[in-house]
């Protein structure tokens, strides 16, 4: 087995396998909500799961609007909900 990956999501440490997407890793911890919306502040999670819908966007190391369903978790990443 390869080394587990450790990153933070809104400050909390998340551990996952190499190659797992950020969304998959967070959902695997039992947390579905990845962000809240700009206007209604409604919670959102993954929806299409394949990079089409942009519902799962998060801020990764300060870069906004990254699709967490597509991007593999890397050690030390700082992931935050978009808004």
């Amino acid at each position, binding site marked *: 087995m390869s080394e587990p990956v450790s990153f933070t999501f809104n400050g909390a440490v998340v551990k996952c*396998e190499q190659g797992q997407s950020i969304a998959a*890793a967070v*959902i695997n911890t039992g947390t*579905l909500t990845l962000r809240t919306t*700009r206007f209604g502040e409604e919670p959102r999670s993954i929806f*299409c*799961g394949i990079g089409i819908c942009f519902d799962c*966007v998060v801020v990764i190391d300060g870069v906004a*609007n990254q699709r967490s*369903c597509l991007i593999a978790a890397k050690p030390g990443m700082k992931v935050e909900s978009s808004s």
Partner: protein
Amino acid sequence: MIIVIGAGPAGLAAAEAAARNGSDVALIDSASRLGGQYWRHRSTVTGFHSNRADELFAKVRSAQSITYISEASVWSIEREGELIRVNYLQGGAESSLTAEKLILATGAYDRSLPFPGWDQPGSMTPGAAQALLKGHGVLAGQKVVVAGTGPFLLPVATGLAQAGANVVGLYEAHSPLRWLLSPKALLLNISKFGELIYYARLLRQYSLTPQFGRVVSRFDQGRVTISRVNSSFALKDMKSENVEADVVAVGWGFLPDLTLGGIAGCKQRVDSDGTAVFAVDANQLSSQPNIWIAGEGTGIGGADLSLLEGEIAGLVASGQNVSSRLRRKRGAKQVFADALKRSYPIGDGWRSWSQKSTTICRCEEVTLGDIEESVVELGAEDSRTAKLFTRAGMGLCQGRVCSRNVAEIVAGLTKCSVTDEECVASSNRPIAAPIALGLLGDGKK
């Protein structure tokens, strides 16, 4: 050289056929592994007839003349004289490739219909539940409802059950008797019964009983409302039942991803199910010289048809003739694809599931009430005007999820039907993937 975009069944078959006939191939895909959405996997492909995937993977991997470029998002395509340039992003940097010929096999994504609560966490497409499980080994939830229409619900429901989820309900909106409308398709595709038996066995093994003529009409904090519908998806009666689930995976067939072919100027047509698809000739050639299109982009038809279309595109692009046997096989699968559209049509009754407060455009948080206001109060007469008033379809996904639904809602309000021009226009996007201006500025050609 031939560039193939997309490494699902169609793209793999195209790359393999082209390489087998002496062409150099660059196979570009956005994922980290071969297989596309349908053959998504971590270590091995599972499901019905998955050995086909392994054979094709092995051939593509071992072919010296195929260069596989993974985790690359193509964001634009341009012509340079006789050549075609494909620009893509990989690992945060911009690169490009040129070739004489291009085969597009960019696949499809789940079609979604709005209902109260479809924007809550836990509501997702069957494709999302499948991608989490097959691609990442993660169950979307412990108690899952699978619903919508079409045969794809079967692998999703049985796959989740095999992985240990409690599938508390499997709801198909249509009656299976609709298949009786397509006797020729069934006779020409007897092998499909093997697939049906495969899934029937799995359903029995996990005590899953599909219920027909039912839809998820509401999802609220783990409470799922199941309602009966008629064949056009209008709610039948006020009777409904509630089940508890943390995930509802609801899908209404598929929409092809037309972005790249649209950028390349390939002509579109409206398919028998009202979906915008690419017009191709008997050799899978698009309206653009030296650009072939294979798979779901030419009309939703599933992996069997995609494999044959890909093989034909790969053969023709490498200057080979296509045997009449291969054309006949494709013909039989096309008859089956037409039967799928006849068996699982999307009735317009879905428009009555939403309330004024129901989100229609997820990106820009536009509700049904907002769209109604743009038509009734502001006088929007088509979906483009309604979009300009409300911003529906102008968010990050560029209308991939909602534009067809918005067009149908506006058509319902104005008592018109969606025109072919509207259908095609709403699928055109000038840039396929978000790209930072700084990267464009640094781009080296």
